[in-house]
């Protein structure tokens, strides 16, 4: 009798396995991180600290959403860090002289500065897109090349020195302002997330990104212009990285050529932890944002636990590898549960 019941109702371990297959490893990691860090530091779970985490994670979240597009189409973008750098430098170099010459025309100064900076960053994405989609250069070499070029240009323009003289309003609006106690960059990120969610789930372009990355030949035979969508993935990735660059410049209140160095790997890590396949065609934007928040949470938690920053790098690397192994395990469990 008891055997019959046991046979009919799946055990706890099977139910856990099913949950694991359905939602992936990330929610488990988040829960573990919350438990560990809140026990290490009482300040961790305060609302002020969580807002800090949100603010810190915004830049990575935006870049990761862009990186996700490149990954979805079966490539990746190593130039996102240097796109941030060149955006920062161009934004600052446009704003500083304008602010000095026309101290009253703040709105115009901000608009022109942001447009110039974001335009420059997006242009790098355009070049990436042309290289990958038209000339069939491997994404690795193409984006590595443009990263080097952008960095070189950013250093040449600034001689390696930070650019000062940005209008105060820039930092005020795009960094310090709080609405309902939440800093403005978080709203920008939320807005971009909504746009990305809509793009990927409700538009033709989004669907085609998945199809091109899932099987480029099948996409071509379905009459899709695969070159165009490959190109667009890199352009949009560049655009998102550039927006993150502008926001970071507002936060630092200077134009810097040396920022964003860890972005390429961190953003790929956020995507992979969020379940985006490195082979393309699979991934959800919500999980990518969670992946970025998770990395932010880990860094913040370790700061509070006074783990030194060099050691933090080690922890992030270990977590990335574990996440990938967990994903392989998930595939395995999925196949076993199916039988």
């Amino acid at each position, binding site marked *: 009798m008891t055997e019959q019941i046991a046979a009919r109702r799946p055990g706890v371990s099977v139910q856990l396995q099913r949950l694991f297959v359905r939602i992936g490893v990330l929610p488990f990691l988040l829960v573990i991180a919350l438990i560990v860090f809140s026990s290490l530091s009482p300040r961790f779970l305060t609302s002020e600290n969580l807002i800090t985490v949100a603010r810190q994670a915004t830049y990575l979240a935006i870049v990761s959403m862009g990186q996700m597009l490149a990954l979805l189409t079966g490539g990746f973008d190593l130039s996102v860090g240097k796109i941030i750098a060149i955006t920062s430098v161009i934004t600052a170099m446009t704003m500083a002289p304008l602010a000095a010459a026309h101290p009253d025309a703040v709105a115009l100064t901000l608009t022109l500065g942001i447009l110039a900076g974001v335009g420059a960053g997006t242009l790098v994405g355009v070049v990436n897109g042309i290289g990958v989609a038209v000339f069939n250069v491997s994404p690795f070499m193409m984006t590595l090349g443009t990263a080097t070029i952008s960095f070189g240009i950013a250093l040449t323009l600034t001689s390696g020195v930070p650019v000062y003289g940005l209008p105060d309003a820039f930092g005020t609006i795009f960094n310090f302002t709080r609405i309902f106690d939440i800093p403005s960059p978080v709203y920008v990120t939320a807005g971009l997330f909504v746009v990305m969610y809509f793009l990927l789930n*409700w538009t033709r372009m989004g669907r085609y990104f998945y*199809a091109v990355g899932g099987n480029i030949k099948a996409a071509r*035979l379905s*009459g899709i212009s695969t070159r165009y969508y490959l190109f667009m993935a890199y352009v949009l990735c560049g655009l998102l990285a550039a927006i993150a660059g502008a926001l970071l410049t507002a936060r630092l209140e200077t134009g810097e050529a040396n920022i964003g160095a860890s972005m390429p790997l961190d953003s790929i890590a956020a995507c992979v932890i969020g379940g985006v396949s490195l082979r393309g*065609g699979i991934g959800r934007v919500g999980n990518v944002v969670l992946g970025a928040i998770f990395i932010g949470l880990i860094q913040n938690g370790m700061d509070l636990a006074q783990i030194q920053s060099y050691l933090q790098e080690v922890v992030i690397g270990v977590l990335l590898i574990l996440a990938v192994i967990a994903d392989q395990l998930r595939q395995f469990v999925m196949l076993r549960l199916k039988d």
Partner: protein
Amino acid sequence: MELAATTLAPAESVGAAEAPTPVLRARGLSMQFPGVLALDGVDFDLNPGEVHVLFGENGAGKSTLIQILAGVHRPTEGGLEFNGQPVDLQGVHHARTLGISAVFQEFSLVPTLNVEENLFLGAEVTRHGVLDKIELHRRAEAILAELGFPLRARRRIHDLTRAEQQMVEIAKAFCTRLSVLILDEPTASLTDREAERLFVMVEQAKKRGVGIIYITHRMSEIRRIGDRITVLRDGKLVATLAVAEADDGRLLQLMTGRVISQVFPKIAYLPGAPLLEISKLTTAEHTVKDFNLTVRAGEVVGLAGLVGCGKSEVGRACFGLERVLSGRIAFDGRDVTGQSVRTMLDRGAFYLPPDRREEGLVMSRSVRENVSLPWLGTRFSHFGVLDRGAERTTVRDLARRLNLQPRNIEADLERFSGGNQQKVLLAKGLVSKVKLFILDEPTVGVDVGTRVAIYEFIRDLCESGAGILLISSDLPEILHLTNRTYVMYRGERRAELAGEEITQDRVLANFFERAQA
């Protein structure tokens, strides 16, 4: 109508009459892959000095069986005996040390290495730890000469044709001391002369007492070199019988489990206006030369020939997938030479590629997304925003019409069997009104049930006025479904047969090189 295995000569009786110790014997082999039982309790034995043919449809379990015998997979159940001793194969290398060598259709050559490096890969001859290149070269030349293959030992695999690569694979098997040789459709890419030489080699190997397992779909080859035949269907053993007892009708019946009239529907032949007209087509790669073809509305036209004869390229050229050097392709009265896939889809022509995993489907995405993919722009979106409701309704209806199993259009394609994946591929062509279907190997690797379903769809489409170009290596399909058939040989049109003229002998006679007059 199922034919019971017991009504036929049981597996034991043929072997028992001679009673030699089988060189290889399998008992109750089962192989469970995730979601598929590929082999189900199969018994098989191979005597020294015999050619044992494995026969069955794609997906019947032939490949799985030989992979187990060659040490690629370990069976989930059942065991093997080698020369009467139980053996548990640890891998391909272990099998090779016992003298079991397999030549698979998918080659195991390293394209960047040359012929001799590939022949002795993993079994290099060394002197004091250094490769003895002179000795390797001598041995490679000796083997190639013995087999009579016109190959130079220092050529890179990458630069060889498919037939030449096939020869290297076969030569590789002969490099070691052989006791069992497994050949998986070895003549698929060989010319007649090359095939004849292979048969002579097989005869020689037989005389030396080598047991040979031979997979082929060709009846003529079975009679030419076979001693016994084992027929598999849906992973189960159907029968083992002597070649002498097996005529074509019976083999086909054993293979499909049905009589021919139950597999192939009758299609009413009411040809209408010409839909596709190809004249003097030559492709840039010269895979197709000076080729003419017409498909009318309400007609099933076959395009037959050996692998690599250019029949696939004809279909691809119609969709701008193969560069056209000269000639004209007209669809529905308009010149469409070199037009893109998009244009052809919009005008009402659909191309079904031969390899669904390679270029037909996005395996990681759902049924819904796959089926609607070619039609998002025309049917399921407004200003770039998707109409997911209409998409879901349409795909759900198609899934019902095609009897998709499981009936879950949100599941990704990895979860479906080969037959159901093929249904999804076909469904892509049924979303919109399509006038011309170019179907390249539409039933490859599917079970009989799906095969019948696909044929019935072809009938329905044809009878409702669509034109169908059926490109196929499956001879029964060509013989029983088509109203007219073109046979190609090396890129050229060899014959055009209509109605009663489409017989096995006449089609096959045009497959191969003509006897020199």
